[in-house]
C-alpha cells in the first residue's frame, strides 16, 4: 500500500481525466440550452395567436369596404338610409364573427363606432372612413384596437 501511495507517475492521466470530464459537462450544458431555447421559442410562436388577430383585423377591413357598397345598393333599392343599412350589415357581420371565434374559445368583439363623411352627406364619394372597435381575447392574449380607422374609399 505504502509503495502505491508514493507512486506519483499517473498524476497527469488523472488530471486529464478530470479536465475531459469538465469539458464534457460544459458541452452537455450548452447542447441542453440550445434544445431548451428551440423548444421555448417554437412553443411561444405556436401559442401566440398572431395569425388569428391579423385575420380578424384584415377581414374587418375588407368587410367594411364590402358593407359600404352593399349599403349603397340597399339604399338604392329600399328607402333605408345608408348609415342604417351600414349599421345593420355590420351588426350581422359582428354576430357571425363572434360565433365563429367562440368555437375556438376566443372572445372577439367587432362593433361600429361611426361612419365619417367629409361633407356630412352619405353618398358614394363622401363616406371615406369608418371607425370600428376591435377586441380579441383568448384567455392569455388580449388585443384591443379602439378605434380602428378603416379607409373605405380605397
Amino acid at each position, binding site marked *: 500500500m505504502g509503495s502505491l501511495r508514493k507512486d506519483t507517475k499517473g498524476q497527469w492521466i488523472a488530471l486529464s481525466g478530470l479536465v475531459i470530464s469538465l469539458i464534457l459537462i460544459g458541452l452537455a450544458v450548452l447542447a441542453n440550452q*440550445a434544445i431548451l431555447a428551440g423548444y421555448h421559442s417554437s412553443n411561444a410562436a405556436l401559442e401566440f395567436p398572431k395569425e388569428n388577430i391579423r385575420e380578424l383585423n384584415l377581414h374587418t377591413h375588407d368587410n367594411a369596404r*364590402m358593407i359600404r357598397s352593399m349599403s349603397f345598393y340597399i339604399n338604392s333599392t329600399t328607402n333605408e338610409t345608408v348609415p342604417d343599412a351600414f349599421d345593420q350589415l355590420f351588426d350581422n*357581420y359582428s354576430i357571425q364573427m363572434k360565433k365563429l371565434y367562440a368555437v375556438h374559445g376566443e372572445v372577439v368583439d367587432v362593433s361600429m363606432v361611426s361612419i365619417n363623411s367629409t361633407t356630412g352627406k352619405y353618398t358614394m364619394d363622401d363616406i371615406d372612413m369608418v371607425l370600428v372597435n376591435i377586441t380579441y381575447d383568448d384567455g392569455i392574449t388580449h388585443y384591443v384596437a379602439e378605434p380602428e380607422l378603416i379607409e373605405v374609399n380605397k
Partner: protein
Amino acid sequence: MNDKAQLHTLEGLGAAVLMTLTILTITQSTMIVTPQNELAIDVHLEQISSDALTVLDRNPVDSDQYNLTECIASWDMTEASYPDNMTGNLDELDAGLQYLLPDTLYNVDLAYIENGDLKVDNAIIRGPAGKNSVVTRHFVTLTNETVSEMGGSWNLGETELRVVEVRLTAWEV
C-alpha cells in the same frame, strides 16, 4: 540554465489560446444553432399554410385564377367524401393549395353560421389527418352577388352577408 522544454511551453501556450478562442466564439456568438424539433416543424407548417390561404385570397377579382372567396362562392354545397369524391367541385382551390403546399396533405372544412347555428362541412378531404397536423383559418365573406356570379349553391338573400371560415388542416408526409 535548463532550456530543454521550451517547445513544450510554446505548445501549451498555443493550446491555451486555441481553447480560449473556441470558448469565446461559442459563448459570444449571437446565433445559437437550434436543432430541429417537432414544434419547430409545426411552426413552419403553420406559417406556410396560413400564408397559402392568404396568398390564395389576394388574387384580384378579375384575374385569370379565381381567388379564395370566389372558389368558396362556387361551392355546390356537396360534402366531400374519401376516397371517391375528395375535392367536390373545388378543383381550382385544390390545385392552388397543392401548388402552394408541396409535400403536404390537407383537409379543408368550411364553418359558417346558418339561421343562428354553426355548420361545419368537409369541402376537401385528402386523407385522415396525421399526428403532427396543424390547423389554420382564413375568413371569407360571401354575398348573393359573388355566389350567383360563381354559380354556387349558397342560398343567400339579396342583402345577406355570410362569413365563412375556411379551416385548413395540414400535415406533412
